[in-house]
């Protein structure tokens, strides 16, 4: 009688059953430990300016070799969303964003701290992160399975278009010059072709080096760009220990009025964050800007923004957390990462021999549901870590920078060496560190490079399969409806900004 209701109900049942199964996986000893370790590391790197989640994930990928893929992914994902919690602590107390995703929080968070409401700002960020993070996971749980179902019908041309469009989006939305970002994509794709070619195994661009046959590995590249590169940046403008605002434990409780003002932005931030997380790009960062703009727009007292409005902290800090959940959707449902952090997760899955894609959910449910369930647990752990223990993490900032930089360098070097015990990887690490430093100084975005390195082999494989399928007919390949739609979206994203600029010029000819 009600066929639709039946279908809907069964979908829900599947999700709940899956989640129950996932909790069974996540609550096992090693996975629980991995989750705790992941969110702990995430919080620490979030607090520390200089080393971020990507560097930390690169650092810890080698140490997951001994673990199973599920445990590894639980830990690495924990670093990713955990860093979003930690980032706000530094931002509010020192006015230096711990992470790029906390830049917006600095505006009102630091102002609140100066007014003596640092505790409230910290509490609202932690609670908002928890609320929105949890909302995001619920959405992930319901969005990813149907998307994977659709993706089962994808052939190589669709995947080719999806990967290409993902790279285009990232370059356009990353901020800064899009054409420079495209150049980074090209550089990443180039690095991705070094080594054995995926179909016939022919070595390419290896200069006769046997070790290069395995290709340029993700770990030394990511660690070079984000670890060594950052250390060099900090070495350049070394400062003393930052001055910090002290917070007493009893100040951590926001007033009733503050709660009332902070709660709706948390929910809105959660919604905004999740959907922005789905779009390819630096999701977490963009979501904070979007949420801040939204809160300012609908606020009854917009004049308070910039002077310590609690909504300006609650919204963005919530949004960046649910954005991480949103960014997990394309990775887990399609096997295509759209953000540098999820690209690291994909890299880890591939190293562990897992074939990511729409079949992951049905063939290896322990990975999908285990990770989803662990995210609920991890968020709870993070709430506890970041609310009562916030002072402990803030005290990391009192470590002198020379000690910290020395330790980070050592970790980068040993971490890279431990992957293959290869000196060549260390030279790649150093080379990418230098390249990363110079390119960063010249305002290049590193995210497209990492994403292109990871997606490059997929792009080549799907391109060649597509051409093979369509017998070399490029038109037949790109005129498949979904492929065409995806490619058109990509073209629109490239052309639109130029078109808008052109229209502005026509409207205001005097200013041209």
């Amino acid at each position, binding site marked *: 009688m009600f066929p639709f209701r039946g279908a809907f109900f069964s979908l829900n049942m599947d999700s709940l059953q899956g989640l129950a199964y996932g909790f069974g996986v996540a609550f096992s000893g090693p996975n629980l430990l991995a989750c705790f370790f992941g969110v702990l590391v995430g919080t620490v790197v979030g607090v520390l300016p200089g080393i971020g989640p990507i560097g930390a994930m690169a650092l810890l990928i080698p*140490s997951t070799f001994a673990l199973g893929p599920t445990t590894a992914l639980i830990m690495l994902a924990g670093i990713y969303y955990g860093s979003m919690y930690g980032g706000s602590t530094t931002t509010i107390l020192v006015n230096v964003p711990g992470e790029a995703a906390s830049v917006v929080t600095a505006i009102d968070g630091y102002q609140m701290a100066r007014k003596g409401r640092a505790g409230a700002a910290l509490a609202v960020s932690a609670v908002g992160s928890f609320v929105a993070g949890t909302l995001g996971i619920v959405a992930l749980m319901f969005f990813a399975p149907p998307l994977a179902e659709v993706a089962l019908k994808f052939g190589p041309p669709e995947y080719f278009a999806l990967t290409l469009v993902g790279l285009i989006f990232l370059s356009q939305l990353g901020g800064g010059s899009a*054409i420079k970002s495209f150049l980074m994509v090209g550089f990443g794709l180039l690095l991705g*072709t070094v080594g054995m070619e995926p179909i016939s195994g022919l070595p390419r*661009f290896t200069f006769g080096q046997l070790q290069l046959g395995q290709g340029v590995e993700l770990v030394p590249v990511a660690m070079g760009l984000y670890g060594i590169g950052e250390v060099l940046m900090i070495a350049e403008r070394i400062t003393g220990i930052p001055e910090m605002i002290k917070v007493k434990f009893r100040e951590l409780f926001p007033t009733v009025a503050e709660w009332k003002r902070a709660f709706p932005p948390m929910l809105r931030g959660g919604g905004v964050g999740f959907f922005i997380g789905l779009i390819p790009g630096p999701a977490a960062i963009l979501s904070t800007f979007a949420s801040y703009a939204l809160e300012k727009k609908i606020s009854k007292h917009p004049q308070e923004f910039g002077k310590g409005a609690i909504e300006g902290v609650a919204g963005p800090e919530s949004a960046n957390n649910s954005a991480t959940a949103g960014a997990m959707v394309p990775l887990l449902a399609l096997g295509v990462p759209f953000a540098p952090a999820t690209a690291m997760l994909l890299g880890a899955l591939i190293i562990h021999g897992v074939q990511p894609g729409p079949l992951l959910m049905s063939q290896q449910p322990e990975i999908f549901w285990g990770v989803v369930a662990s995210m609920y647990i991890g968020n709870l752990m993070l709430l506890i870590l970041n609310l009562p223990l916030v002072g402990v993490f803030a005290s990391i900032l009192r470590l002198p920078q*020379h000690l910290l930089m*020395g330790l980070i360098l050592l970790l980068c070097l040993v971490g890279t060496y431990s992957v293959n015990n290869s000196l060549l990887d260390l030279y790649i690490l150093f080379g990418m560190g230098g390249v990363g430093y110079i390119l960063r100084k010249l305002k290049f975005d590193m995210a497209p490079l990492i994403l292109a390195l990871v997606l490059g082999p997929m792009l080549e494989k799907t391109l*060649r399969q597509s051409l*093979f399928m369509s017998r*070399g007919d490029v038109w037949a390949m790109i005129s498949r409806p979904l492929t065409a739609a995806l490619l058109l979206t990509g073209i629109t994203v490239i052309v639109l900004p130029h078109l808008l600029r052109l229209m502005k010029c026509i409207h205001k000819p005097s200013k041209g």
Partner: protein
Amino acid sequence: MTLRALPVTFFCFLVLGGAYLAGSLNLPMGSADRPGAGLYPFLVGITLIALSVPLFIRSVRQKETQQEKEEAFPKGKDLKRVVAVALTIVFFIVLLKPLGYTVCSAVLMGAILRFLGLRSWEKIVLISILTAAISYYLFASVLDVPLPRGILFS
């Protein structure tokens, strides 16, 4: 005219793209319905060149005052510090096999502490030795990373 960083960088990418493109031509190209190993690198090479040529031309034409904003490379002491840290890393990599991890890590730590502003030599020596000992135990014994032992400890 002084050499400016941005045009030089784009020029490097142009050269890289050109060399890469030339390399891809030596690979089997295959046919349209059976693409070989060279097709995709060929396309990537073309893309790199197509992107770096306009960027290079634009950056050469750009006014120098405008460029200075984009290229705030460090000078004097700041530059020395960056180079010193970079050389320390190179030292570690080159001498890791012959000298072994413990010596290299102690020197690395000591050098970084010194370059980034720790004044007291006693502290530098103490922290470096402690770092080397603790990290060697952690990596080699607990995490089983086969770190080179070098001449002193083999």
